[in-house]
């Protein structure tokens, strides 16, 4: 196998694994900050217990997120050196700003939060939690500004054989990145809420710590309700923008082959990349793609056939990832509305609670699918329209990359297994055993 493919596999494995932990860190930190604030405001010990119980799960997750994040920053250099040299002037700056502006704060204060319960006043301690939550989400701004630039490069010029910054504000206010950020934050909050609701529902079904978990559930429900809608809303905005600036991704995610006005939307399709058509097409609604993508029935949507073959992303993966994300994204607001209706009689709603336990991991699938769509759909470009992934890899031996890839898989499988085991056992144990009072 060649270096490019191996490096892509390694980067995919490393980012997708890292991203199992990031959204919970982002979302749950906000929910925990709210719980701790409620404790400070009301003095009710139950909220303190809540903060500590969810905090324990948060910290296991946080540790895994941190250690898997470090490898990512360095992989641009180890595996994508041609890319790094070409775009470092812009991309590197954004990563460096992320570390100095946000990640430092988050990492320093998480230590203070863990060890500072007796050293700080309750108010100060809650403030630290808010700062941890804020810093994590500010981190996301910079990471997504960097990714947004790869998706839709702006504010640069090509000089001396590389991309150089000409307008920092253009990079900062890149619409693509801003939309990615709001979509990401919404969905991370959604994931955090579903996590809290899923674990709470498990205990409510067993009728354990009912007060504790009803309140936890209801706090998360508010966030879940809001974020399920804002995720869909920002997703729609983001999609329209993708349609405007990344026609090849749009065509692939919709398996849309022929350029047409009143372009149809296929509810289900099996794309056949070789013959440039869909083997199976079910539930095609004429004009709907034009409406969704451009908010205009008569708008023209470019088909894959009008995009050079060597500039098309893998259609099947992109299409399937998009369908998975949107399908789940449609389910979440429905579950949240039902939850809102049942919020006062949760304990009796065993059917709904069972569904919520089963749904705990669904936002994970949706978010991973979303990133597959974003990244695979951008191919064959590493920077859309500017640099191809095939030109971006390091001049290293494929044996080196193969070795490190195997090591990544082994170490991450081990970490994943231990992490999942610890999360699971601590979640199932519940607060009384998990928190010594």
């Amino acid at each position: 196998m060649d270096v490019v493919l191996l490096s892509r596999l390694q980067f995919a494995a490393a980012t997708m694994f890292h991203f199992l932990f990031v959204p919970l860190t982002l979302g749950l930190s906000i929910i925990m900050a709210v719980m701790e604030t409620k404790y400070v405001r009301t003095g009710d010990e139950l909220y303190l217990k809540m903060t500590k119980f969810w905090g324990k799960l948060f910290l296991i997750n946080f540790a895994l997120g941190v250690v898997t994040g470090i490898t990512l920053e360095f992989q641009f250099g180890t595996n994508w050196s041609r890319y790094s040299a070409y775009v470092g002037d812009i991309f590197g700056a954004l990563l460096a700003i992320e570390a100095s502006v946000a990640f430092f704060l988050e990492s320093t204060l998480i230590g203070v939060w863990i060890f500072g319960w007796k050293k700080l006043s309750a108010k100060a301690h809650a403030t630290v939690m808010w700062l941890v939550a804020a810093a994590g989400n500010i981190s996301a701004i910079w990471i997504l500004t960097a990714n947004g630039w790869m998706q839709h490069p702006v504010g640069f010029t090509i000089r001396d054989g590389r991309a150089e910054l000409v307008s920092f504000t253009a990079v900062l206010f890149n619409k693509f990145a801003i939309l990615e950020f709001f979509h990401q934050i919404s969905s991370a909050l959604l994931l955090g809420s579903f996590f809290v609701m899923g674990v709470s529902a498990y205990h409510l079904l067993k009728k354990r710590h009912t007060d504790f978990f009803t309140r936890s559930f209801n706090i998360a429900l508010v966030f879940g309700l809001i974020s399920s809608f804002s995720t869909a809303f920002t997703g729609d905005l983001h999609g329209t923008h993708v349609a405007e600036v990344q026609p090849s991704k749009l065509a692939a995610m919709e398996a849309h082959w022929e350029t047409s006005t009143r372009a149809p939307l296929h509810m289900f399709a099996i794309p056949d990349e070789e013959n440039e058509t869909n083997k199976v097409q079910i539930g095609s609604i004429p004009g709907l793609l034009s409406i969704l993508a451009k908010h205009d029935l008569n708008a023209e949507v470019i088909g894959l056939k009008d995009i050079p073959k060597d500039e098309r992303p893998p259609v099947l993966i992109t299409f399937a990832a998009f369908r998975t994300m949107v399908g789940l994204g449609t389910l979440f607001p429905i579950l949240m509305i039902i939850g809102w209706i049942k919020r006062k009689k949760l304990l009796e709603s065993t059917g709904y609670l069972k569904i919520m336990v089963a749904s705990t991991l669904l936002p994970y699938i949706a978010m991973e699918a979303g990133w597959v769509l974003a990244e695979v759909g951008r191919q064959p470009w590493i920077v859309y329209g500017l640099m191809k992934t095939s030109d971006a890899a390091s001049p290293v031996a494929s044996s080196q990359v193969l070795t490190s890839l195997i090591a990544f898989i082994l170490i991450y499988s081990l970490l994943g297994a231990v992490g999942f085991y610890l999360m699971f056992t601590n979640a199932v144990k519940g607060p009384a055993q998990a928190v010594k009072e």
Partner: protein
Amino acid sequence: MALQITWFYLWGLLWAIFFITDGFDFGVGALLPFLGKNDDEKRMMINSIGPLWDGNEVWLITAGGVTFAAFPLVYATMFSTLYTPLMLILFALILRGVSFEFRGKVESPAWRFIWDTCTFIGSVAPAILFGVAFANIFKGIPFDGQGVYHGTLLTLLNPYGLLGGVLFLVLFLQHGTLWTAIKTEGDLHERAALTATFLWPIVLVVAVIFLIYSAFATSLYANYIANPIWFLVILITVAALLGVRYFVGKKEWFKAWFASALTIAGAVFFGIIGLFPNLYPSSIKAEFNLTAFNASSSPLTLQIMLIVVIIFIPIVLCYQIWAYNLFKGKVTQEDLEYEEAY
């Protein structure tokens, strides 16, 4: 020009801060199986760095990020040519990071032993590998004008490179011992104090050999001979190392630790000053050398990053010092009862 020179030294400074801060974490982790005779003592050692190590590690992320931002070509070439050692460092850091969090989560000596071993490996390996890497950078790395590395992992394990590895390891061991001495009491404290006395002559010998060997293996001294004022840096470093022994003798542990920090900074700057203007010299041909001038970002990016760094690094230092101050004092048996302790 001035911007690039500023960034060159800032680059060195960030690495130096990383080695000072995470250096004692590495030292404590490496000493864990030897100084900690029972589980309580091990936990005291881990909890002495518990609230701080994560923030310390971000200095590495920042040093890496700043290399990327200010000298993208160096970032690209350095990390791809040092592919395998860097991967080993990263895997080691992963093990260390999770082991703190995982260690206490299951009540079993075997479980704890696994994660203590990971802490040990995850502390020793980066300490040595960073030393090997930097010594080889001082010497020059066999890469060509296309950034292709002409060598193997064994190429880096030459005598000078290995000496660099040993130097970093003993510096961090000393740094970690002194930290343990500051943060603990009783038997553990006595053991750390004794280890510090025992380690110091080793550090001195290794450092002196390194300084002499550098004259033969590298061209670092050219800049010192051209500008003899720089010799002051070496003098201060040696004085700092002597200071470590002086304060150890007086049992003034924090001052000894501080002198040790200064020694580490001095060791880094000894190399950085000698390297100037090279960040990443090639041992194949001088024309392939990556310098502050031919490998930097555009002036606009350097300016923006300078503003960011001038504003935020002092802020970071302030809240990190606040955090250090918050957790000052000895880790006691009572602290181990604390439910959130590792």
